[in-house]
């Protein structure tokens, strides 16, 4: 899959907590795997993920090649309300980058 994409869903869960779910499309190559011809597939993984709430960074994460292909990320944001914006950005070890933004839906 050449194109890197993300799927995101954010939904209010209670009075001021938003539940966010993100599925990222990424090969997350460990550098250990061999292809059909027996050659090692080069290391290719997401190194940094950040989440924003209305533009303000609320979470930053450093990832490693130990995270599986097509990573799933789930977290909760306190102090959120329906209509707020949630943004996710990842950067991988090749410098490739992907960003997605969504609006929090009511519960």
């Amino acid at each position: 899959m050449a194109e890197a994409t993300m799927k995101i869903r954010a939904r209010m869960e209670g009075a001021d907590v938003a539940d966010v779910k993100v599925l990222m499309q990424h090969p997350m190559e460990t550098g250990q795997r061999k292809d059909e011809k027996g050659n090692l597939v080069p290391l290719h993984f997401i190194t940094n993920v950040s989440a924003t709430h209305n533009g303000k960074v609320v979470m930053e994460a450093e990832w490693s090649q130990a995270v599986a292909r097509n990573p799933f990320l789930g977290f909760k944001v306190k102090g959120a309300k329906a209509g707020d914006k949630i943004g996710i950005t990842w950067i991988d070890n090749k410098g490739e980058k992907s960003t997605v933004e969504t609006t929090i839906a009511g519960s």
Partner: protein
Amino acid sequence: MRIMKVAVAFVATVLAVAAGGASAAEGMKAGGAKAPVPLDLGPSAAPVPWQRYKVDSQGSSWPQTDWKEYSNSRASVTPEASPPPKFTAPLVGDVDRGRQLAYDRGRGGSCVVCHIFDKTTPSQPGNVGPNLSQIGAGRTEEWLFNYVWDPRIYNKNSIMPPWGAHRVYNAAEVRDIVAFLKTLQAPYEPADKVENPATRPAPVDNRDNLDPTENPGMFALDAGKALFAKAGPNGKSCASCHAAPEKAFKTWAATMPKWEPRLKKVLGIEEFITRHARATTGGEYLMQSDANIALSIYLRNLANGAAIKVDARSPEARAAIRRANELMLRKVGQLNMACVDCHTKERHANKWVRGQYLVEFKGTVAHFPTWRTSRGDIWDIRKRFQWCNVSVRANELPPDAPEYGDIELALAVLNQGEKLNVPGIRH
């Protein structure tokens, strides 16, 4: 009305000519009222020669053994049961080694796949075969030796592989296994409800397969939609002819697979995509490529909710289903198993092979292509067939094999009325 008919026939002829390919015109039936869909009738829609997968995207490997001395869905070559080596008393065998062989996943896949033994039984035994905790009290050494060597000697239709006759274990190893079996004298079954296959609850898959944050197969849906609109080498895209796909393909996928007279085989959506694209946009989407699966998911997803309604009545469809029924009864592979052995409730469906649950044919097709969480990949139905074959140690066929077409149609018939729900997500 008569004038109408002539007009329709005329339009059909024009369409066939406009489509340009001699291939399209060839299939015209004399006096036919409908232009056949343009299809490339040339080279195979799958890589030639077909080579078995070595690894999948997660690095899990496919076994590479060539099992050509055993039957598969093409060749019926498995030798008949022959007399076992003469059993000579007293039995010489090593109990510990026998137990080790019975529990070893590396050889036969382990006897625990189907049987419970004594309290040393490893976790999550299966129940396709009988509980053997008292077998040592009930059977003679010779009977056990012969049965493990080749159960067909006593029971022609047994699902158990002929371990000795098919050279998974040699005679000395079978004697070791028999020595272990003779120690099994007292009733045993796992006390834990989940450990005991008789009471283990059947798995329920209640994931929302259309939730894009849940099912990575949904990425392929986007990719398929984009491909549909992308111009091929001829400058045309799928959308050039099919401007309103949501409307045009509302039920189409539920009517496939279908007998294709020009190719003289049952055509599934995946091969259809390859051949139709070659004849129209010039795109090359080999079966089981990412692009082919993405388009297949897109076209099936458009028909989500539509009940499967394939042609099962035409003489050609009936003949295909007849062939498929024979194939599904055929014992294949080194493990000598038929589709019906595992997937009909008259035999062993709804039982456990170790921690895996054997399902019936119904409910197995409406979600394909499906994301396999255990493989980290999307599989179309033909790849699933290939994996079934390899799992019983039979050589798989290329994905465009006519035999797989027959089986796909027969399965669709058994699933008539089931609603499409694509892309699926399964273990």
